[in-house]
């Protein structure tokens, strides 16, 4: 029962956040200076044409009604129609999603695979020179702009070593492994930064845990350092790391926006940037809401995962 209450509480919180997001997304496009119809048609446009386009875009309706129309559309999966492509935004998203999803999943996989061993090593050998050197590398990894990293990676892996393609993206429909190969360099560009952030966090959490009393108790019972580390400390340290993983998923999503443009991947990020460049308001509005919705969903899933792993959450609250 307690679990159900927790679920309901998180769900309602997510719903309220989504409501706030819808308000923000919609009104951002209304209150900021600039008449969309005039901007689209340009400075020298015929005023009658601007008026006609305004009417067509539904801009002459009162603002509350426009908001409710838009929200109503959201519930039926209608995110608007792109001005440039004259195609429903949802359809464009559907076509672009596999690329972005693949990129996100691959980046997260690389992050997860690298983070645990490196963090554990750094926590165990906190004072050795190699650990300090690795920490310095982590710092640089966080500071490097991902799009510059991509350029460097292309230089090394595509041009010099010729291991990976840097050219056109091969769609999943054509070849699964071809698509994966096209996504490796982009995923690396994103995950090197996020891996560095998570490693730092996990290492500090592990070190904090290792100073706690229960570790002393376990050692005094005769458990080896390794046994304590893997059986107790790691599990306790992974808990807050799950929370940060939600944050990282969001970072990866944000990072993919720029990286997709670097590698010219036909994903959501590139769609968004082209929409911004074309002043395609409905497209940008729909995409922004979709992305925010994804983030809220990810955070909700992370909350669920957290509750599933840590029984204290279910019992205490």
């Amino acid at each position, binding site marked *: 029962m307690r679990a159900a209450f927790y679920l309901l509480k998180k769900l309602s919180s997510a719903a309220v956040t989504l409501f*706030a997001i819808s308000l923000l997304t919609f009104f951002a496009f209304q209150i900021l200076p600039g008449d969309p119809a005039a901007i689209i048609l340009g400075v020298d446009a015929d005023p009658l044409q601007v008026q006609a386009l305004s009417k067509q875009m539904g801009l002459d309706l009162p603002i509350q009604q426009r908001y409710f129309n838009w929200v109503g559309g959201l519930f039926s999966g209608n995110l608007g129609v792109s001005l440039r492509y004259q195609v429903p935004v949802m359809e464009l998203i559907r076509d672009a999603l596999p690329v972005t999803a693949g990129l996100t999943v691959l980046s997260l996989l690389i992050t997860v695979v690298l983070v645990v061993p490196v963090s554990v090593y750094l926590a165990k050998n906190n004072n050795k020179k190699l650990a300090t050197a690795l920490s310095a590398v982590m*710092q640089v990894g966080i500071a490097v*702009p991902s799009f*510059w990293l991509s350029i460097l990676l292309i230089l090394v892996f595509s041009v010099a070593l010729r291991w990976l393609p840097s050219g056109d993206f091969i769609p999943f429909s054509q070849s699964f492994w071809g698509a994966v190969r096209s996504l490796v360099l982009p995923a690396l560009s994103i995950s090197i930064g996020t891996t560095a952030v998570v490693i730092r966090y996990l290492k500090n959490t592990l070190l904090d845990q290792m100073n706690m009393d229960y570790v002393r108790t376990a050692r005094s019972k005769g458990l080896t350092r390794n046994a304590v580390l893997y059986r107790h400390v790691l599990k306790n340290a992974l808990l807050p790391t799950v929370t940060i993983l939600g944050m990282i998923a969001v970072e990866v999503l944000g*990072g993919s926006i720029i990286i997709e443009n670097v590698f010219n991947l036909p994903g959501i990020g590139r769609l968004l940037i082209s929409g*911004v460049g074309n002043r395609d308001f409905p497209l940008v509005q729909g995409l*922004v809401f979709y992305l925010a919705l994804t983030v809220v969903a990810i955070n909700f899933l992370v909350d669920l995962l957290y509750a599933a792993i840590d029984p204290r959450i279910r019992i205490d609250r």
Partner: protein
Amino acid sequence: MLKKCVQNKNFMIGAVLLGILVLILAVSFFYLPYDPNGMNTQQKFQLPTPAHPLGTDNFGRDILSRVMKGSQSVFLVGFSSVGIGFLFGLLFGAAAGYLGGAVDEVLMRITDALMAFPGVILALVIITVSGSSTLHTAAALGVTAIPRFCRIARAGFLQIKEMDYVKAARSRGASPLRLMALHILPNMVSPLLVTASVGFAGAVLSEAGLSYLGLGIQPPEPSWGMMLFEAQAYLLSSPWYAFIPGCLITMMVLGFNLLGDGLRDVTDARTA
């Protein structure tokens, strides 16, 4: 406290890195070796020489001069966005933390909603509607920074509000404003400074990204991100061009991150 800062390795390395960049910025106001936009196509893609210490780009423009001029925009955007984030974040966080109740709930929901927009999306929204320029970039990144400052400020106010010395001051009749400004705020400056430092780093990265996409600072104003974008086209023939702007961005972000980490180490009650 300054002494402890100087002894902290992170802080000092960060300070040195930033010191170099601030020096470049300061000099750039008085002296630029060449006109940043002066083209000289006969001298394009030169590697570093005494005449052009950082080489020239695809139009023969001196890279050092462009980099120096570009530092002005970077610092401007960084300061503006952190300034906006700090100011409004502090205001909202103070209101939420001190007043509590409904005000807190509403402000926190808005903050949650703002934080749900990944990366530079908020900035992109503002730029879609208002067009791209240095001013809009700074404003957009400022809005993106508000939630983080708001959370930190709120946490600080919530915690310190309950401390005895604040209650004592209140019982002597201090007004809420006086309490907030004179008693609570000075004791929570440290985490705000750390957030500001790290926030500056984030703003620099975001601005570089936006300029790289052509949506940030517009040409002919040189910007490090835009230079990276231009360099990418000539990657195979002249890889040197892409090297410098990336290094500088990394240096600035690293500097602010290390400075913030150092500050955090110095002011954290556990390690002090």
